[in-house]
């Protein structure tokens, strides 16, 4: 029982990452009609916003310690971060400790600008082009973004730890009547899950309750009519693109303590987030969230030994390797519009 | 007994009864129009004819064979061609190729893996397509890209593509929608010519009364998913039920 509960938690956690990326992806598709293969790259860039902030906060003054030597036998260089010099050691260390939450704030304006520039500079020229062209140009962009990050940060993963306060584990099991330590779950992952729910909730609220959101939703439903009403829907969609980029970005920031980012992060999440979108239904926001959580949980369950050996009896070894794709294929064949997709949207 | 028989067709979308017990019979060699106000179920009915929608109840028969459950291409192969509201043509191909394709479809059926024969070697097909273009007076545009043509020419091309298959029944979905008056008149003339020259049975779904009354030999009026009147044009004009359907009830 505790094992299943743990996997549900894992699934929700993975699922919230999938959902956040897929949400932006489907938002862009729904509003602009663009299939954006560079959306994973936006997630990756977000994660590297955290890395960058970590580097900035660790800009140091260097002093020499003559009592110790470095690997060449020269006096050892001692680095003191500037923030510690400015704000005192305790406050400075606290700032560095809270890099990731700070990076969320740091990344939002950056991602909005990146999203805006990307839409105005590239994507908008592809509204009228076939989906294949959109896929290809954004795929190229994803490669370029990855390579630029690699050139600046190297190919190896970089650790950006969670604040000490949130780095340990929380024993969720004791609240549910399990023995101590049976269902201990990392606090940061719980934080990430709550954060994702908050972001998803605010996007829905934003679309549901603001005038801006209503116009966007109307535009998603029928772009031409809304355009006829004299509303500059393009401008609103550009802003939506920025918001989608920002959502992917903050998701990337918050994900760094869970998975240290490398330049390949975008590509690793690209395929899976597309699968999430089509399973949920292209252009369906609720579908993306639902499919994200569903696939996250399925993936977690598939990795359980009991499940694996069950599928082995059915001559399907290593089910965890292929579960996501298998599910995607079955869903697309049985229900082509996806779980919550609207009838007629790219359905044939 | 008509060439095209629709019996008791009903179709429901959720809470909406889109078609309610529709009966229709089209005589061979006539032009039959189906009219009705917006939302009367005209398009739904047409989609049931061509295999795009499956009615909940009823039968649709063409020359004594049921069309239900058949795919669009199968229905076409039985001799039913369709003209769309906005012309559906192969825009990236030349005008000539556009007409050539239905010629092949007529000869080879719905699938033929002829991957090695050259198109240019198929003399009979080429002659047929060229004749078709001469018939619709488009032979001088033979090598133009279809996408580069005017709306009227696209309609004419689409018509030619349908005629190249020698259909027994031609379904026209608002063939003059969005056209200027002059183009509309041209289209009317074209359809009349075709009817006279080839005697093809036609079913026209239309909203424009001018078109309907210039062409149709019989008219069915559809309102709220059900046919309310079926008669010759003279009797439809001024029919109280029709007025009621279009203008709403007086009381």
């Amino acid at each position, binding site marked *: 029982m*505790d*094992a299943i509960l*743990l*996997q549900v*938690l*894992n*699934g929700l*956690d*993975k699922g919230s*990452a999938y959902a956040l990326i897929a949400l932006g992806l489907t938002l862009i598709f729904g509003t602009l009609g663009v299939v954006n293969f560079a959306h994973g790259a936006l997630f990756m860039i977000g994660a590297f916003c955290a890395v960058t902030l970590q580097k900035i906060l660790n800009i140091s003054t260097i002093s020499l310690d003559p009592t*110790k030597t*470095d*690997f*060449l036998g020269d006096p*050892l*260089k001692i680095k003191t971060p500037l923030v510690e010099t400015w704000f005192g050691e305790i406050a400075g260390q606290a700032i560095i400790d809270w890099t990731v939450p700070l990076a969320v704030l740091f990344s939002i304006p950056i991602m909005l600008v990146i999203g805006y520039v990307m839409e105005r500079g590239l994507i908008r020229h592809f509204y009228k082009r076939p989906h294949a062209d959109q896929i290809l140009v954004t795929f190229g962009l994803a490669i370029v973004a990855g390579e630029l990050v*690699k050139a600046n940060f*190297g*190919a*190896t*993963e*970089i*650790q950006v*730890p969670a604040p000490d306060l949130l*780095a*340990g*584990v929380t024993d969720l099991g004791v609240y549910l009547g399990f023995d101590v*330590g*049976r269902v*201990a*779950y*990392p606090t*940061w*992952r719980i934080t990430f899950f709550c954060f994702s729910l908050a972001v998803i909730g605010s996007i829905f609220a934003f679309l549901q309750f603001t005038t801006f959101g209503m116009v966007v939703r109307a535009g998603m439903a029928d772009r031409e009519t809304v355009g006829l009403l004299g509303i500059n829907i393009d401008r609103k969609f550009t802003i939506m693109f920025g918001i989608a980029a920002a959502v992917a970005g903050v998701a990337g920031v918050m994900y760094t*303590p*869970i*998975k*240290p980012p*490398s330049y*390949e*992060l975008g590509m*690793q*999440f690209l395929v899976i987030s597309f699968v999430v979108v089509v399973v949920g239904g292209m252009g369906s926001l609720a579908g993306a969230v639902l499919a994200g959580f569903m696939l996250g949980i399925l*993936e*977690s369950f598939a*990795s*359980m*030994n009991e499940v694996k050996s069950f599928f082995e009896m059915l001559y399907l070894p*290593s089910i*965890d*390797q292929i579960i996501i794709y298998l599910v995607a294929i079955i869903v697309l064949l049985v229900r082509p519009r996806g779980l919550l997709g609207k009838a007629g949207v790219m359905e044939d | 007994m008509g060439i095209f028989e629709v019996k008791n067709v009903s179709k429901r979308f959720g809470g909406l009864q889109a078609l309610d017990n529709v009966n229709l019979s089209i005589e061979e060699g006539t032009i039959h129009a189906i009219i009705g106000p917006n939302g009367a179920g005209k398009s739904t009915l047409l989609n049931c004819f061509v295999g795009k929608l499956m009615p909940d109840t009823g039968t649709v028969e063409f020359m004594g064979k049921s069309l239900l459950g058949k795919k669009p291409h199968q229905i076409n192969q039985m001799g039913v061609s369709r003209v769309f509201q906005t012309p559906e043509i192969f825009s990236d191909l030349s005008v000539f190729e556009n007409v050539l394709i239905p010629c092949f479809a007529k000869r080879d059926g719905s699938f033929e893996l002829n991957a090695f024969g050259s198109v240019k070697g198929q003399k009979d097909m080429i002659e047929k397509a060229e004749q078709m273009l001469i018939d619709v007076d488009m032979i001088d545009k033979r090598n133009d890209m279809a996408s580069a043509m005017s709306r009227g020419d696209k309609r004419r091309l689409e018509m030619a593509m349908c005629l190249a298959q020698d259909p027994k029944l031609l379904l026209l979905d608002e063939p003059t929608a969005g056209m200027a008056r002059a183009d509309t008149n041209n289209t009317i003339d074209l359809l009349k010519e075709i009817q006279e020259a080839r005697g093809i049975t036609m079913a026209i779904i239309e909203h424009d009364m001018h078109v309907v009354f210039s062409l149709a030999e019989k008219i069915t009026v559809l309102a709220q998913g059900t046919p309310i009147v079926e008669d010759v044009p003279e009797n439809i004009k001024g029919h109280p039920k029709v007025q009621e359907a279009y203008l709403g009830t007086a009381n």
Partner: protein
Amino acid sequence: MSKIEFTRRGIIKTSAAVGAGIAMPTLLTSPAAAYTNEPKGKTVTLGFNVPQTGAYADEGADELRAYELAVEHLNGGGDGGMMNTFSSKELKGNGILGKKVEFVTGDTQTKSDAARASAKSMIEKDNAVMITGGSSSGVAIAVQGLCQEAGVIFMAGLTHSNDTTGKDKKANGFRHFFNGYMSGAALAPVLLEMYGPDRTAYHLTADYTWGWTQQESIQQATEAIGWKTAKNVLTPLATTDFSSYVAPVLNSGADVLVLNHYGGNMINSLTAAVQFGLRAKEVNGKNFEIVVPLYSRLMAKGAGENVKGIFGSTNWHWSLQDEGSKAFVKSFGKKYGFPPSQAAHTVYCQTLLYADAAERAGTFNPCGIAESLEGFKFDGLGNGATEYRAGDHQCFKDVLVVKGKENPTSEFDVLEVVKVTPRAQVEYPVDHAMFAGGELGKCNSGA
């Protein structure tokens, strides 16, 4: 043209001399070269085939640095590095056999296909007499097979699978790096000493060839010291979030987690394990422990704080205090500003060993070189007394057991050497079961 003939060798040369003022070339045949890419001019070309793109690009970059350093030293530049401490004194800083050393580089992309293509072009286009490098076993085995067919020497870079000198060993291929079996044999005594004999291990293993061979080696070695194996779970290579594999460890009753992962996999699985509080856990009254059998400094750096106190093994580490290591760290550090990684060390050694073997053989003929490398005993290259075993072309030397340093003084100072396991302890017979199933075959010179 009629004089061009095909033989069973890869490449024959037919040369044509152009008479002065004569437009038509006169074709003459020259005696065929004695072996593939026999260097005829004043230079000899080596092919450095390393991952420059993909997840191991950083390791590849470090390898390339070491290669450039080695070439510089061979040609008499720099301070000579380990050439001064190497027990064989054949290398004089005048290139190899008097020929200046040149090199070409290629990108393996850590894909066996791309690596073979890159090596092939070095052989066919750039006339490389030796190919070296690589940062994964799949690539090493694939390129080794190619070199065998083409008739050039392959000096393997970073490859840890038992298969490289086991079932896939080749007469033209040589491995300086250690392997999975050695990791197990070196680690087990230290683990016994640190954690006692009464332990239950839970293995997470990357689901591909290298993971399987390493897991097998470690399981065997730890079971020999009395440990039990609770479970071995295979993880898909593309896993980025290991939480669903780590979570079941919590309540499995195991008290040691062995991560048979490398590169990004290892960084991600270790991060997840630490997040789940495994290290703070107590099971069966003992502290829960994590073991990472194969360490590299670059990976350890990627895992950051999480590696502190975690045991593993490594081929070489810059903090070693023997003369060879010191000389190498000095000349590498001076040139690049940071200490070399084990990958850099291994490829530097391989280049020197090749050059030395050529000097001793007096030829670049792969068969001559293979003969002088087989059974070659040497010292002064940082790993103590070492032997290239003739039977399988595997180097036998001391293996380092390391652990993540608790109080690093710099960003390079992430590992500390706990024990230098003597060579005798990690040796195994050529026909050991884990290495069985292949044969060296005969050396191929391409003639």
